[in-house]
């Protein structure tokens, strides 16, 4: 591979060096020269449409967009002539005249709007053109965000984001000229769209208030918030988060652009569901009284109640059942306290136990492998439902690089429509494998992503068959194998050596348990899904003393004798291990309002 050529250009009289192929804007930025932009965003393809980043090149009568023009060796570039400033001003004024940009009514007023920023930077206090006052619609049908066409400047950052980052291409521009409009699918609404994943990346990248977060609206400019970098704990991908808070409430959640895991991208869970959905929070310990109702109690009272109960019946069968969302530190505490209980286990997704194995099951740089793959096989996993950011990368590989996609799963998923082969795992025929072999014939960098369902009996058969089909290929072109569990800190549990349960019924049933502490931590459903398993509810109701440690109220907490309030991801401090094996920090962004404590503190204070 040849090293790219070094080139030298002059920008506003300053000598700048760069490499051949770099744009004028890239070289200017690297040398601290600021050129105003609107439609340009690092990480997206260059559009060259807003005409704000225009520069002059000596010898050419036309202005060129610096974000899209490769710098030529020896060029003399001016970024701030009177002509350019005048053109930028007039272009901005035309934008202000085009639609209804009413700053006082906009949540991005006072600092978060790119258009307002450029307007102020260019000293615009009024415009010389007539306002057009078009009647533009507003779409509020998406759950977490809205699209107000009145504020749109048609920069197409959202279109490019949806196409190039999330990979679904839900957004595009319809009509022509002054009637241009951003549309969802074929002129549907967000609520009716069957392609939109609600990842919110478009909202994050919109420079104006056209796309806006409902929960963040009118909470003040981002500059007035505190920022904390933490990690999402909804799934084992572990995306970096940049959380903005104000007065101890979350205002906005963005992806951390410096995180090597997600590079600033998030899915609907990390960006919205964890905090924007309304749930009932348990703020104090609750103890069931003689009247059979749960009553608020103090920590000492609640802890004493548990200790007394245990002391009274020393030969009770005791159990500790923990959520796989616990941080590594909480897991360590569980291990330490394990011998205080007759039985200790963690509940994981069906067939997931085999994936929550030893740390050596981790696949480092899995995401990079995905980014380079030219063939991706997804077996027994549904990234579009469970690991949104991984699904985005798979879609990008397919749509931008023409990678082949083969999906094997019993259940339908949102990724199916992008696949070359989509097979129901349950029914596979012999001729089918020939088709698979043909599809994979030219793959140089295949990747095999497998989820818990791959560990089911049929899944294992298919897995072995797939690996075998690669054996026939030549040396060195075998697939990179990426196990993708579902539970957040699955790998963190690997080292703990805890028993992993895919079903808790049998575990409860082997010997009747009299005391059970379920550490549901910050499970969004408060642990209620445990009750969906057959026989669990009656089995649990037979437990004499059920203690549930959870952040949110649920049918499970309603069954408990004692409920201990736990912190959520937003209040936790610790680490989790993502599916690549990276140990990622979880930092508190909010101070708990109430008596909530973190999982390890609760366990220590009760059982140590």
């Amino acid at each position, binding site marked *: 591979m040849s090293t790219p050529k070094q080139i030298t250009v002059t920008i506003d009289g300053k000598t700048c060096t760069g490499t051949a192929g770099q744009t004028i804007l890239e070289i200017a930025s690297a040398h601290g020269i600021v050129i105003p932009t609107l439609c340009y965003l690092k990480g997206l393809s260059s559009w060259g449409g807003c005409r704000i980043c225009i520069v002059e090149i000596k010898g050419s009568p036309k202005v060129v967009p610096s974000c899209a023009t*490769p710098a030529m060796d020896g060029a003399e570039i001016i970024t701030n002539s009177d002509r350019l400033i005048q053109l930028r001003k007039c272009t901005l004024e*035309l934008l202000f*005249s*085009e639609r209804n940009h009413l700053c006082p009514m906009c949540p991005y007023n006072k600092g978060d709007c790119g258009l307002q920023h450029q307007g102020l930077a260019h000293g615009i206090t009024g415009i010389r*053109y007539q306002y057009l006052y078009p009647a533009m619609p507003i779409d509020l049908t998406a759950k977490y965000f809205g699209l107000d066409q009145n504020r749109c400047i048609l920069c197409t950052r959202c279109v490019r984001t949806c196409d190039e980052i999330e990979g679904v291409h839900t957004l595009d521009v319809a009509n*022509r000229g002054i009637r241009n409009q951003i549309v969802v699918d074929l002129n549907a609404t967000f609520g009716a769209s069957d392609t939109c994943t609600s990842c919110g990346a478009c909202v994050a990248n919109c420079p104006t208030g056209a796309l806006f977060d409902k929960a963040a609206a009118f909470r003040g400019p981002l500059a007035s918030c505190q920022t904390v970098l933490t990690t999402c704990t909804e799934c084992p991908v572990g995306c970096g988060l940049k959380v903005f808070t104000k007065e101890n409430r979350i205002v906005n959640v963005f992806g951390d652009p410096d995180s090597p895991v997600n590079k600033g991208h998030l899915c609907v869970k990390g960006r919205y569901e964890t905090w924007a959905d309304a749930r009932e929070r348990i703020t104090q310990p609750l103890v069931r009284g003689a009247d059979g109702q749960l009553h608020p109690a103090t920590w000492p009272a609640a802890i004493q109640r548990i200790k007394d109960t245990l002391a009274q019946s020393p030969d009770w069968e005791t159990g500790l059942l923990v959520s796989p969302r616990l941080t590594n530190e909480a897991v360590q505490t569980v291990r330490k306290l394990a011998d205080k209980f007759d039985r200790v286990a963690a509940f994981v997704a069906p067939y997931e136990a085999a994936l929550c194995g030893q740390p050596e099951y981790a696949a480092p740089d899995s995401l990079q492998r995905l980014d380079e793959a030219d063939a991706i096989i997804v077996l027994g996993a549904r990234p579009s439902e469970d690991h949104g950011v991984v699904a985005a990368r798979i879609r990008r590989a397919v749509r931008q690089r023409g990678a082949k996609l083969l999906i094997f799963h019993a259940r339908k998923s949102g990724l199916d429509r992008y696949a070359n082969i989509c097979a129901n795992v349950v029914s596979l025929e012999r001729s089918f494998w020939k088709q698979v072999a043909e599809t994979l014939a030219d793959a140089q960098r295949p990747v095999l992503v497998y989820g818990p369902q791959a560990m089911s009996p049929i899944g294992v058969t298919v897995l072995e068959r797939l690996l075998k089909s690669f054996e026939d290929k030549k040396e060195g072109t075998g697939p990179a194998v990426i196990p993708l569990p579902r539970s957040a800190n699955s790998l963190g549990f690997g080292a703990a050596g805890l028993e992993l349960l895919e079903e808790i019924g049998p575990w409860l049933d082997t010997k009747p348990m009299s005391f059970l502490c379920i550490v549901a931590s910050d499970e969004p459903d408060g642990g209620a899904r445990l009750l969906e398993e057959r026989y669990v509810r009656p089995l649990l109701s037979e437990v004499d003393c059920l203690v549930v440690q959870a952040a949110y109220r649920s049918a499970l907490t309603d069954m408990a004798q004692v409920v201990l309030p736990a912190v959520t991801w937003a209040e936790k401090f610790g680490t989790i291990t993502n599916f690549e094996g990276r140990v990622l920090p979880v930092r508190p962004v909010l101070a708990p309002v109430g008596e909530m404590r973190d999982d390890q503190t609760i366990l220590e204070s009760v059982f140590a």
Partner: protein
Amino acid sequence: MIRSNVLVCGGAGCLSSGCHAVQDALKQELTKRGLDKEINIVVTGCMGPCDLGPVLLVHPDGTFYQRVTALDVPALVEEHFIKGRAYTKLLPKDEVTANLITTQRDFGFFAKQEKIVLANCGVIDAENIEEYIARDGYAALGTVLTAKKPADVIAEIKLSGLRGRGGAGFPTGVKWELLAKAPVTPKFLICNADEGDPGAFMNRAVLEGDPHAVLEGMCIGGYATGASRGFIYIRAEYPLAIKRLQIAIDQAYKYGLLGKNLFGTDFSFDIEMRIGAGAFVCGEETALMRSIEGRRGQPMPRPPFPAQRGLWGKPTNINNVETWATVPVILRKGANWYNQFGTEKTKGTKVFALAGKIRNTGLVEVPYGTTLRQIIFGIGGGIPGGKKFKAVQTGGPSGGVIPAEHLDTPVEYESLQKLGSIMGSGGMVVMDEDSCMVDVARFFLEFCCDESCGKCPPCRVGTKQILNLLERICAGEGQMEDLDKLEQLATVIKDASLCGLGQTAPNPVLTTLRYFRHEYEAHIKEKRCPARVCRELLTYTIHYDNCVGCSICARNCPTNTIFKVKGQKKYYIVEDDCIHCGACFDVCKFNAILKASDGTAHVVPPKPELEPPPGRKTQVPA
């Protein structure tokens, strides 16, 4: 033995005026008279004088018949083919001497042209490849592939001085050389057949009348530049051209003149058509390429240029239909033959589409350097109806108007640019004293505003803003500051727009302001439209002297604002409710309706006592 060919012009213009019926009648009549073994009917492409259609050209006599109908055919056959005399009823007349023109050679419209690109148009049957071959078709390709090197071909094109006919006038040889130098393969060639300028139909004529010239030109270009595939991007609004082009492509493949290993060499070339979808902006080369790729037709900034990164990121060369069609004749007759035509800076000939207020509407091909006067008056026949020439609009919506004082300007790229206009692809719309220059500017801006792709604000919003200003001026609501605003907006749009559409959209405004500012001022200061075009500035008055009281105007008035004068057989228009539609003006057979635009000087005629027109119960206004 066939002793005579009757050429029926089958260009789109003559099709619309009914040449099919003429063709069928001819076939019938010739068979009936037993002449079908002696007289051959050939349907050709456009012969040029589209306004005179349907037209016939009889060879070997060279007799040209105009405005032929099916009913004329029996008499025509009797006179011309049985009795051997020209059928004088359908012969054209010389404008000056009023003599009948008996042969095509004597018809000024044809005689003063130099047909190089259109040499086969109107002569051969476009759906028969053998007729193209009979006229030396594909001979140039054969020679080039077997006896010349690619670099020789490029040198020949450079020497010929051929400049791109799409409007930019970039030297074709240099453009080909850039593609030839590109190190990446595959390379593509594109023929831009989008021809979106309103009133332009030069490319259409070539595609309908001589499609093989384009195919041969592209093959030669492919050999010279190393391209392996060609695309003809043709607008969907040209169904006849699409049909004829597909027939030509299929025939070329069948005869081994397209496809693999042409002329026994290892050069292969494929051509396919891609059909547009109704967007003027897709005539811009980067938008065109996006359209072929299946994306929204929006331009991309240049650099990178298509020769570096074009279709699907590969090196690509785009040329206009006329440019491609000129290539075979250059290679066949030599660059030095070709560059004797034209001027110092611009060699060869150009096809112009003459339209508007002109006697001979149609296509003309003349060498560069011919003056506007020679084209408009010499070949075009001047302005009909005794009206005075006012201006000629060249270059379509990207061009500008040129007034009478510059009629002696030789037509070439640089000279037209100096006048504020552009050559464009060759559209020439002639205007007379009845054309309003402000309305012309408004019309072209409306077009550009509608066709703007909308990617960049200067064009998307700027053209809308300019259009709003012009509409206000045409409606009599303009202010003098609006003229400064127009110029300011025009500068911004021209300078900041991303592509040629925006960069040239203000040209009609700028040139009309430059040469006809007084018309703008009349609209603004006096609320008057000197050409009596702008509706809101018109008044209709009934002239009592001519009015006979037939009431036809009143019966046609959509707002019922015309009343009968009590006691007289005269009518009167109540101006308050008049919407200036001109219906009364159109139906009056007695020249009793005065259409005027007096502006602020208008005096409303005194209102007599009125009564409703007979048979109507409309209320007489107070």
